[in-house]
């Protein structure tokens, strides 16, 4: 790990790719260090919080990078390219109805948040998780990229391959729908 850090920590993601294409393990280690946990988190949140499935998809994603590193177009952002591949992989998983049924281990509304003294806040968190869990693949992806990965509208547009205006419009209606779903908490004290 120390050797990886010394050699490649100053390289950009785009500079690491040709090295990985050439079979450099240290360059790959550096890229994995930067994106391994991040992509696992993305898959975990997208794919019904199933750890095994998320790990499988993470492995498959990095295998694609190893295989197709040479196809990466110079001048393009690696991050958005990487996420777009991950997004397409999630889309495929959602299409598999059997997989969706098999891996739906977390019931909608089940919270993984820590202990909260404020019961109302606990309820609110459960409701939020329930709301997110019920989103379809398209809306969930938009929600995660915007509010958890903190990506800009242009970046999301590139990843999802949707025009920016459409992204803004979808984001607006997403927030509106979620506000309606959480309207019961309007009068409840949800601030500590």
């Amino acid at each position: 790990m120390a050797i990886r850090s010394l050699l490649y920590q100053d390289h950009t993601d785009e500079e690491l790719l040709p090295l990985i294409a050439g079979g450099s393990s240290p360059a790959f280690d550096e890229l994995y260090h930067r994106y391994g946990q991040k992509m696992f988190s993305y898959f975990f949140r997208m794919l019904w919080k199933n750890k095994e499935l998320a790990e499988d998809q993470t492995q498959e994603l990095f295998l694609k990078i190893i295989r197709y590193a040479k196809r990466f177009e110079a001048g393009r952002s690696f991050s958005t390219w990487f996420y777009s591949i991950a997004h397409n992989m999630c889309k495929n998983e959602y299409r598999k109805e059997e997989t969706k049924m098999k891996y739906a281990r977390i019931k909608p509304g089940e919270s993984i948040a820590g202990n909260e003294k404020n019961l109302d806040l606990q309820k609110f968190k459960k409701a939020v998780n329930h709301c997110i869990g019920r989103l379809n693949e398209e809306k969930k992806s938009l929600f995660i990229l915007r509010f958890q990965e903190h990506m800009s509208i242009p970046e999301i547009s590139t990843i999802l391959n949707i025009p920016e205006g459409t992204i803004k419009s979808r984001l607006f209606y997403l927030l509106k729908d979620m506000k309606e779903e959480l309207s019961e908490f309007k009068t409840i004290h949800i601030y500590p």
Partner: protein
Amino acid sequence: MQPDDIIQQKEWHELTTEEKKILQTLVSDEQEFNILKKMMMIADETATDVPQVNPSVQQQLHRSIKKSNQKWYYAAAAILLITASAWFLLRNEKDNRSPIVTNPQPGEIIKKDGSTPKDSIVPQKEIILPKTDTTHTAPAQKTEIPVAPPGPSSEKLETSYASISTLLKDDSSLMAFVTEVY
């Protein structure tokens, strides 16, 4: 600025008139504003509520990198082997392209039926005549059939055949035979 950016970065009482105008289609009052604000905060917090990825994922990927490198080594070795084999075979083929007739005895011409033409140059042979009654006759003598001097060496084979052809051209049947042999 996007509506969600405004909600995340500001409190209700901090909003300007313009910002309230942007948000008016999304939120109608402070309570709705706070619902969305808190939702975004919880979404951000739960982003880190994710287990750690198993180290075996990285180990498995390392093995894949090694395998993909090995393929290149095998491919290079295969190309070298094919090139070497092709060179070796071509070289052997060239060596095997020897003179038209291989004749262990210089100057000897052998017909298909195994006999040799009468005018052909044959190696020196000793012919021993059968013994006769020694009391009345002279003792048996070795008779040597005069033969032509030893034929040319293998290096001069081509020129010697050329000279033979000039001698043989008078004999048409022999010529036909020689043509057939060659």
